């Protein structure tokens, strides 16, 4: 369907309707999922079957009108099956692939969204996830917007292009996860005279992070962006991989888990006061009023910080801190004392036995929250730095091997498939030689960003070495993994990097193996197999994904004992 040559107000209203409909789709797909779940438990439930039929019928009739043609066609296909089942008055136990229906609908939706780029980004053969992050791109230049949109989509974001502030205003009934704003994107005269006030006013209803873009460089351009309500400023021409990494980092930090705080305090009023204050700030809080239960509670709750009363009947706060510092697991746990004590000597003693800071009673709620949050934030950063690779944010070599070993041991007790993937950037050395190491690092970082966007939270994603990556995918057979990695491969090849004023693209090769094809292999041997498959991919021309097969490996025969 073409929406070319329309008056611009109709065009933007159409866009707004499409946005609203897109949000409704999320709810409708969830609802269909609910009906299917109900039917799985009770296949003969005709009420659920009729509800499912109605929902699919609605979808079949409306999705195409709003530009989601493939979703509509898929819904129509499924509707037909339900309609036949209804006519024959039989349950849905007979319907093929019922469990995959929602996944199929979501994949169609994703296909519709990818296709809309019109720039030949291949559809990912991947289970579409609802939590795909949406970016609204406010950009005057349509061609530039198409380009940026396509690039960001290949990083796994959904992107909606709006041409100016007016379109944004009409669309503001719903909200994206991030706004990317060209700071000249309005014809309004107010933008010329008071640009900062203009944007603050236009953007005030958005709670999401806002990043400005513009051709200007330097301190004042950035200051303008900050004063206009922006979280960041990127100069044009935009370096999209860098932008994507930045965006992923901003959005990730927003979704971090709540801080866990243990309050050790015998005065229950005081303890509850602190609990309420911290809980209101979104933290998880437990109160310990029996000091003797400290170790049990700590290992059950796994706190990231302890608020400790100094004077308690059974043991003093300083004594409790001293106990904790003796136990390796808790030795680095931040401890903040709550105390009305002002004697410097007393305080010095308490700190030397293991505490980190004092907070005076009566406790100031704001100070309490910010102290807890900043301590835990820094603790988390430190842990991140210890286990994660700085450039990509992926797990480091040793930790990914450990993750593989853990998974391997887990499936020995609870059999299930898992896949191991080795992945390598093609001709990476020539990227470094031609464009320099800084650009090479950017390419590596882009793979990191892409991996985190494409895979589940439960997947273990590691940087194995220079330009080599290792993935451990639980609950995933090699054939599914191959599809996922191939989607990643296609997305990666669509990304354009900038180096020395020219743009270029890269490809990657991968080898995939799963535990079921090599049931007698150790974790280590599975990596070797994935590596062999990777070499097969390299030798058969690169830019491809190869599957390890047992026939390639004489050791894989059933007569062989565990291969090393």
């Amino acid at each position, binding site marked *: *369907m*073409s*929406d070319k040559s*329309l*008056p611009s107000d*109709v065009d933007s*209203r*159409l866009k707004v*309707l499409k946005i*609203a*409909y897109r949000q*409704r789709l999320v709810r409708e797909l969830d609802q269909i999922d609910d009906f299917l779940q109900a039917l799985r438990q009770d296949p003969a439930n005709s009420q659920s079957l009729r509800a499912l039929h*109605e929902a699919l*019928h*609605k979808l*079949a*009739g*409306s*999705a*195409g*009108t*709003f530009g989601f*043609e493939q979703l*509509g066609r898929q819904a*129509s296909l499924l*509707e*037909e099956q339900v*309609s036949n089942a209804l006519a024959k008055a039989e349950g849905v136990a007979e319907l093929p692939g019922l469990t995959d229906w929602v996944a199929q609908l979501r994949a169609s939706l994703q296909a519709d969204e990818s296709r809309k780029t019109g720039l030949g980004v291949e559809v990912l053969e991947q289970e579409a996830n609802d939590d795909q992050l949406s970016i609204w791109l406010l950009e005057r230049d349509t061609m530039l917007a198409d380009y940026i949109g396509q690039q960001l989509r290949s990083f796994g974001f959904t992107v909606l292009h709006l041409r100016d502030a007016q379109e944004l205003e009409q669309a503001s009934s719903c909200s994206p996860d991030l706004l990317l704003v060209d700071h000249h994107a309005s014809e309004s005269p107010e933008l010329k005279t008071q640009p900062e006030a203009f944007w603050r006013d236009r953007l005030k209803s958005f709670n999401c992070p806002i990043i400005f873009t513009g051709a200007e460089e330097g301190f004042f351009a950035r200051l303008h962006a900050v004063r206009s309500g922006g979280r960041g400023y990127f100069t044009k021409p935009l370096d999209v991989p860098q932008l994507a990494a930045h965006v992923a980092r901003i959005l990730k930090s927003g979704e971090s888990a709540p801080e866990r705080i243990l309050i050790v305090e015998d005065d229950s009023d005081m303890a509850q006061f602190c609990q309420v204050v911290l809980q209101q700030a979104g933290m998880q809080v437990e109160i310990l009023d029996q000091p003797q239960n400290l170790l049990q509670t700590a290992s059950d709750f796994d706190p990231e910080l302890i608020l400790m009363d100094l004077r308690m009947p059974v043991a003093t706060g300083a004594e409790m801190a001293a106990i904790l510092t003796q136990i390796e697991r808790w030795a680095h746990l931040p401890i903040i004392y709550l105390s009305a004590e002002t004697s410097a000597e007393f305080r010095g003693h308490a700190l030397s036995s293991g505490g980190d800071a004092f907070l005076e009673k009566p406790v100031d709620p704001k100070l309490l929250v910010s102290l807890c949050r900043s301590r835990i934030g820094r603790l988390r950063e430190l842990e991140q730095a210890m286990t994660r690779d700085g450039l990509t944010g992926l797990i480091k070599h040793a930790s990914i091997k450990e993750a593989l070993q853990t998974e391997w041991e887990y499936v020995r007790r609870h059999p299930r498939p898992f896949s191991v993937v080795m992945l390598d950037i093609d001709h990476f050395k020539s990227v470094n030689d031609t464009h320099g190491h800084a650009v090479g690092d950017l390419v590596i970082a882009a793979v990191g960003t892409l991996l985190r966007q494409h895979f589940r939270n439960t997947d273990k994603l590691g940087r194995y070495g220079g330009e080599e990556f290792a993935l451990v995918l639980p609950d995933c057979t090699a054939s599914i993994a191959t599809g996922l990695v191939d989607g990643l491969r296609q997305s990666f090849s669509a990304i354009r990097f900038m180096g020395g004023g020219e743009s270029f693209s890269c490809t990657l090769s991968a080898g995939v193996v799963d535990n079921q094809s090599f049931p007698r292999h150790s974790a280590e041997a599975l990596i070797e197999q994935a590596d062999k498959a990777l070499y097969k991919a390299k030798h058969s021309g690169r830019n491809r994904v190869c599957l390890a097969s047992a026939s390639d490996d004489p050791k894989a025969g059933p007569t062989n004992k565990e291969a090393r």
Partner: protein
Amino acid sequence: MTLQKVLYIEDDPDIREIAALALVDVGHLTLKACESGKQALQEVDDFGPELVLLDVMMPDMDGPETLMALREQGSITSKTAVAFITAKIHPGELARYRELGVTDVIAKPFDPMTLADDLRRIWLRFNE
């Protein structure tokens, strides 16, 4: 006589909205959109449509039932064109709809850019 006034009965609010865009802004027609057969029965006579467009599958009163009720109260005459709009159409149903005096059936999903043209074509055929 050119087509001007269209009554559209459709239970899905998003579809009513995009249809308004398609028929009024793109197609320059005059539209009255009703969310149910019941509402249509009350408001049809004040509006006096030349063409009535009905969604087939609706809760409470479906399209065919609404059409019959509209005829019964005399709101649809020999001068009024009638069209159905639906996602699923089986050959047998089409014949049944024709017996109800329906000029044509429009397939859902419709293209908002051409919906008005489709209605104008139906209007021409009806007046042939």
